[in-house]
């Protein structure tokens, strides 16, 4: 029974990736410029007319879009995603060298964001409408509208250029370094930028949901039992808000990932964000397309994972598997 369930999920995941690749492929094929360049790099300029014809034949570039896609898919499954025009290397190699950095920054940022915004939201709901809450709300709104790139610039300016406390670029100190604490040191500012860019948005959501939840009828009953206000907030309201929060965080992955990319470019952090930026600048469509595909895969994977975790913990769905509703 379980296998069928997970099998279906896996199939749906694969189908989504497939459709995404079609979408991304079609967009990339609309790009102006020489399509051969993405496979032969600089050699294209030196190819004769006849060689070009043969290459186009072999790659199927003269054929209808569907066939082109088929051929691309065939090669992709074998691990051949083409060559990066700028780096003159296999696309997968180029990405592989950098994806780890992004996952580190983005992953760490997501985890911190998850816990910090939850805690901040709970805190604000606890002192709802009080002075502290109103101050935090105003500050939070102000910070949340700042575009990520400007926030990063600000952080670099204050902490790196003026105060000279933290490094303002790169993942590790050039020439030496690469050690754990060095990497961490370089991560601090970009991490702050990623977190601050989204923190208030989710904290505000938690705060509002909790405040709304506190108006529910069962809260009155809980207090009539003799429970403390704090116990009601944590023991009752939070339990109802958590499933929604998990769902919201699962949807937040593309936003956090996008924010990470921007932060990377400002900090010159060697991740796939800077890679995407460079490939756009240098019209390296092949690399850009694969990056879009990769980002989509990361997002779809995390969202499905989040869904699965949410379902495991949502009491309504869990108990529905066990019994039929009771007619008392």
């Amino acid at each position, binding site marked *: 029974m379980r296998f069928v369930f997970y099998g279906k999920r896996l199939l749906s995941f694969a189908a989504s990736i497939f459709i995404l690749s079609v979408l991304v492929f079609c967009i990339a094929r609309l790009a102006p410029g020489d399509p051969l360049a993405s496979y032969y790099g600089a050699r294209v300029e030196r190819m004769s007319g006849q060689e070009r014809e043969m290459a186009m034949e072999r790659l199927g570039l003269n054929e209808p879009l569907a066939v082109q896609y088929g051929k691309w898919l065939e090669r992709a499954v074998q691990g051949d995603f083409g060559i990066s025009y700028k780096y003159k290397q296999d696309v997968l190699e180029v990405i592989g060298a950098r994806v780890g950095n992004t996952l580190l920054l983005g992953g760490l940022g997501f985890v911190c964001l998850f816990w910090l915004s939850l805690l901040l939201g709970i805190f604000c709901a606890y002192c709802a409408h009080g002075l502290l809450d109103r101050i935090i709300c105003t500050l939070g709104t102000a910070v949340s509208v700042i575009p990520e790139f400007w926030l990063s610039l600000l952080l670099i300016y204050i902490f790196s250029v003026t105060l000279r406390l933290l490094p303002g670029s790169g993942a590790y100190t050039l020439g030496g370094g690469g050690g754990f604490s060095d990497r961490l040191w370089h991560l601090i500012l970009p991490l702050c930028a990623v977190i601050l860019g989204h923190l208030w948005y989710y904290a505000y959501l938690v705060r509002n949901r909790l405040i709304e939840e506190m108006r529910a009828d069962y809260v009155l*009953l809980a207090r009539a039992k*003799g*429970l403390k206000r704090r116990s009601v907030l944590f023991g*009752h309201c939070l339990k109802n808000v958590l499933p929604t929060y998990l769902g919201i965080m699962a949807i937040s992955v593309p936003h956090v990932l996008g924010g990470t990319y921007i932060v990377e470019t400002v900090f010159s952090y060697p991740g796939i964000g800077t890679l995407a930026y460079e490939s756009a600048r240098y019209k390296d469509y092949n690399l850009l397309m694969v990056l879009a595909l990769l980002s989509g895969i990361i997002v779809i994977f995390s969202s499905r994972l989040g869904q699965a975790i949410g379902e495991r913990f949502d009491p309504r769905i869990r108990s529905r598997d066990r019994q039929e509703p009771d007619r008392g």
Partner: protein
Amino acid sequence: MNERLRLEHLTVTFDDGAHGIPVINDVSLSLSDGETLALVGESGCGKSMLCRSVMKLLPPAARITSGSIYVNGADITRFGEEKMRRLRGSVVSMVFQDPMTALNPALTVGAQIGEAVRLHERGLSKRDVHARVCELMELVGIADAKSRKELYPYHFSGGMRQRAVLAIALAARPQILLADEMTSALDVTVQAEMLALLRRLQKSQGMAILFVTHDLRVAAQMAKKVAVMHAGAIAECGRVEEIFETPRHPYTKKLLAATPERLKKKEPTASGGEALLELSHLTKRFSAGKTTCVRAVDDVSLVIRKGELFGLVGESGSGKSTLARLIMNVYRPDEGDVRYEGRSVFKRGGTHAEKKRLQALRQLIFQDSASSLNQRMKVKDIIAEPMRLHHVTTKRGDPYAEAAFQLKYVGLSDDYMERYPAKLSGGQRQRVAIARALSMEPQLLVADEPFASLDVMTQAALAELFMHLQKEHGFTFLLIAHDLAMVRLLCDRVGVMYEGRLVEVAKTGDLFAAPKHPYTKRLLDAMPKPW
């Protein structure tokens, strides 16, 4: 007998910024061990606020401005939050009206009852708590407590949830129980069981109960003493027989005059008119989940004659609303047919104009007036809508003039035309819905629980409107209600529905005097008797 609760000149005000509005105005009451005091009044009179004041769980903008509340002799208006918290649940407990929202959907029922147990009895082991939870659940009549306590509120019906709420309230053996409209949201039969349970518990536990309700008959059943509340003040207080037979306060007199038993009964219409609506073997199935299929309406056959007021009663889940919607062509039946004036409603091959005309002849009035009116349309547009749809030129020319006329006819003045539904009360909204239905001069009016969520006096006004419409204009009514007293007052014939089937149909007098089907008997027995 110990006096457990005493209110002396209690005043509670709502902070308006400028001046406060007194929600409770100089109220004095007392309650002793083993005694039940019924508190009667319409919505908005302050009864719920009173209960919340005793618990000191008022909304943030409300304050106790003067007077005192003595619980076991101590004035709790002076108590701080911590002291009050220790009283809640252990000395004073409260049960609320809406069982569907009173329980936390994310915790099991057992966990919620267990929480109440653990709060007031420290140092109990897990097993002890479980045992006590089972004990409480059995006390309130939830069978199979051991397995039921692991279920979530989602699995419980309304009556079961209310029992669970009662279990929570009784967990610490309180001396005072505040029952705030405890049975108002329950079906008649379930209500009767709950009231019997409450009486039993009071005998065994000896609590003092403050029973708040808007239903005078229920009040008479539950208590020997009654207090009538109006606009935040106690209008009259005394023994049940005194108040109900010889009321002194004008408000009490008005309230009593509005109960269905006291209203001027309608003259019965001559029977044997021609059939207006014929239902034959109507069946509608809904799928609930992948395998199960629910028969909302199961093989119902019925004839409604011209000019009569037909009442359809049944509890929730009996299929009355689905039947109404089938008649109105909102749903298509799976089997069976609906014939209107001899012509089938569902068969193909009528012209579009004919079909449209058919739609106009039947109008539906919904239960929830708030959701049946578009919040973003003005009243005049709402009433004029059917006229606009059918492009009829009305007697009074312009659709808006007609709308004004209909509005006046149902008892609302002209200046309601420009308002939005949000600014109207429940009774007024219901009247607008009726005006909308009437504007098409229909032959058949189907009213789906029009009295639900309305005050006693508004209900009486609406009932008189219905009687007037039928007498003066010869409308045919299909009235769907769960309030048997209202049905007895208004209807010529009554049909009883149970689980989708029509179990009995008879003339009103015959049905109430000598019910044949066992379910009808059960229903009539559960009706709260007038004093």
